């Protein structure tokens, strides 16, 4: 209900824009509109892929652009706010965009994506992990350049199992859909392959203190033994606060996280952090098993200095996907490009082989890297693909489903 009332202004704006006709898309250039967060906590996850997307635009323009036309970017700031997100989407449409790119999160990207879909414009999220940012949750024109959230949990579970860890504990930040997906996938797959779950707890992103959660953890550890791995399903800044308090309490158990914990820009909040593992898109440290990823980060370093996460890979891949689909369609027409995107079958994009179908606009099976932090320094630990991932109906579950 809250989502609906928040999206109402955006939908009204979208309808108005659609009625008056979006500023006739200029056919001498290809305009990609970025309705993303340039401020607020979401910028930590939108800023890096935006840089990757800009690099792609520059490189493709040097090769002649898309269908021989130069690519131009227009950007509107969502300010990590839902209402502003809808306005940013409308702004980008009004500026004559052919394609829209939205925030790397379902909750944050949905308002702008809804505006795009209402205008029959393709909207691709940089890296939202929730399958709801797609056909089922937004509409036929919405995509996301990521593996579904549960899949990150699955790969985390796989990595944990391969390390010989058997007893798991999950701490869920109940503030976002993304977090619930990651924990959902971890718990379901972990139990399926034979792992034990000795405890689950929740906290909220804005909690300054997780003291009572830690107290409960200690009680559980005293009764059932210390777990081998702690799955923390959260995002920054709340996740840093949680890890800081967990480590300070003397809990040195390995911590697993999703792509929200990529990079090491946040480790200052947990001095000397070791045994932290994040499931993300690739390694920016130069030792990714894929040569093109390492080369990309070399180019990135030369232009922008050290990257803070592997998210630029996805930003680049979004523009890449638009280019490939538009060129196959031979046109910028949304429906024709949409048809081509829906045919992507292990399409070799920079972030990895990507598959979309008319019903599923998120990648179900995808190689993901596990980045470890030891002594505050990040490095590549493993790259894993899990084929026997969670069943499709679990990707769109009723989240009241009891997995605890």
């Amino acid at each position, binding site marked *: 209900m809250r989502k609906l009332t928040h999206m109402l202004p955006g939908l009204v704006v979208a309808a108005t824009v659609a009625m008056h006709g979006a500023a006739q898309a200029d056919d001498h250039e290809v305009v990609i509109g970025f309705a993303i967060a340039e401020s607020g906590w979401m910028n930590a996850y939108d800023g890096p892929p935006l840089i990757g997307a800009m690099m792609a635009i520059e490189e493709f323009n040097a090769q002649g652009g898309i269908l021989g036309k130069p690519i131009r970017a227009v950007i509107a700031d969502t300010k990590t706010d839902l209402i502003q997100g809808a306005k940013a989407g409308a702004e980008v449409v009004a500026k004559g965009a052919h394609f829209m790119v939205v925030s790397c999160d379902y909750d944050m990207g949905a308002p702008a994506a809804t505006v795009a879909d209402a205008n029959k414009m393709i909207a691709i999220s940089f890296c939202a992990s929730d399958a709801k940012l797609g056909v089922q949750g937004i509409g036929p024109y919405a995509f996301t350049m990521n593996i579904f959230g549960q899949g990150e949990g699955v790969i985390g579970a796989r990595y944990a199992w391969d390390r010989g860890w058997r007893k798991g504990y999950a701490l869920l930040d109940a503030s976002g859909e993304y977090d619930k997906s990651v924990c959902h996938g971890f718990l379901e797959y972990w139990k399926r392959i034979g792992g034990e779950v000795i405890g689950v707890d929740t906290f909220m992103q804005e*909690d300054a203190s997780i*003291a009572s959660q830690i*107290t409960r953890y200690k009680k559980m550890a005293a009764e059932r033994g210390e777990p081998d791995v702690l799955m923390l399903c959260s995002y920054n800044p709340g996740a*840093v606060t949680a890890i800081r308090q967990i480590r300070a309490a003397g809990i040195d158990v390995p911590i697993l996280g999703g792509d929200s914990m990529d990079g090491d820009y946040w480790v200052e*909040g947990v001095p000397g952090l070791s045994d932290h593992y994040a499931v993300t898109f690739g390694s920016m440290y130069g030792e990714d098993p894929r040569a093109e990823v390492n080369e990309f980060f070399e180019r990135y370093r030369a232009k922008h200095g050290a990257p803070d996460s592997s998210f630029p890979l996805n930003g680049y891949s979004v523009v890449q996907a638009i280019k490939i689909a538009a060129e196959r369609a031979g046109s910028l027409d949304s429906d024709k490009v949409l048809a081509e995107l829906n045919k992507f079958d292990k399409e070799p994009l920079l972030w990895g082989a990507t598959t979309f179908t008319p019903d599923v606009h998120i990648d179900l099976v995808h190689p993901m890297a596990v980045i470890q932090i030891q002594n505050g320094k990040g490095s590549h630990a493993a790259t894993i693909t899990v084929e026997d991932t969670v069943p499709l109906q679990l990707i769109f579950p009723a989240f009241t489903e009891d997995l605890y």
Partner: protein
Amino acid sequence: MTAFFQNAIDAIALGSLFALTALGIGLIFGVMRLINFAHGDFIMIGGYSLIVPSSAMTATLFIGAWPTPFLVATICLIIIVLAVASERLAFRPLRDAQPSVLLITSFALSFFFEHLVIMIYGGRPKALNLWGGLIEPVMVAGVRIPALQIITIGVTVTLLLLLVLFLRYTPMGVAIRAASEDFRMARLLGVRANRVIAVAFAISGFLAAVVSLLLVAQTGVLSFHMGIPLVLFAFVATVVGGMGSLVGAVLGGFVVGVSSVVFQTVLPIDLRPNRDVFVYGMVLLILLFRPSGLVKVKSIEEKV
């Protein structure tokens, strides 16, 4: 028993943080009948003052790297100056306006501070390590408690005692109490309005600075919204405790903080994410039975 003791300390520590924030808000409300929503931004700026002004994604400690006494004194000074300046420049010109105008002004001030910080420091949250040693546990009566929790409780109790002594036994304190009770009468009796309000803001700023240091040491992050959750709960705390009463503000802070921890501990896992629903539900119940809050203040009570 150990778990109960630990939970009790958790509850009192969180309550202390809310109580200090509620006190800062309650002080201004008592004297000016103004809910200062910019209080959260005083807290936020206190945190950001610790680092080198820069929009880089990682923070470099500046004042935050100084020896503790200088660090605390400087941050307190910065926020006191900020608070007094806010009063002088934003609120004093509107002193005689409707309360709703003052409220909007405090929102506008809050908005201004947040965007100033975004301009200078960038919009992304930053991680930093302040007094990392304090979050390590110490043994108290056989139980491991984070030192920061003990310090938070200790600082709160000390500051409350000092404030009570100040309000009771110093001329300025008496003047503030008089102004809270009946501003016009106090002025007629010779209390200088401007000075009283400035001192109230200064104390409020000092309290905000203390809260900001405790918060940053606890969370390890800075973000331009970091003061908002505290201030929202603190505002609720002042209402529950009794608006216009400082004791009420503190009491309300502890009630909200303790109940938050109690619900987090006691609720079954499915309901735990909705913990705040229960906290606010309890607040509603309290207000149903005592609409003026737990501590009644005669001058605010509606007389039919």
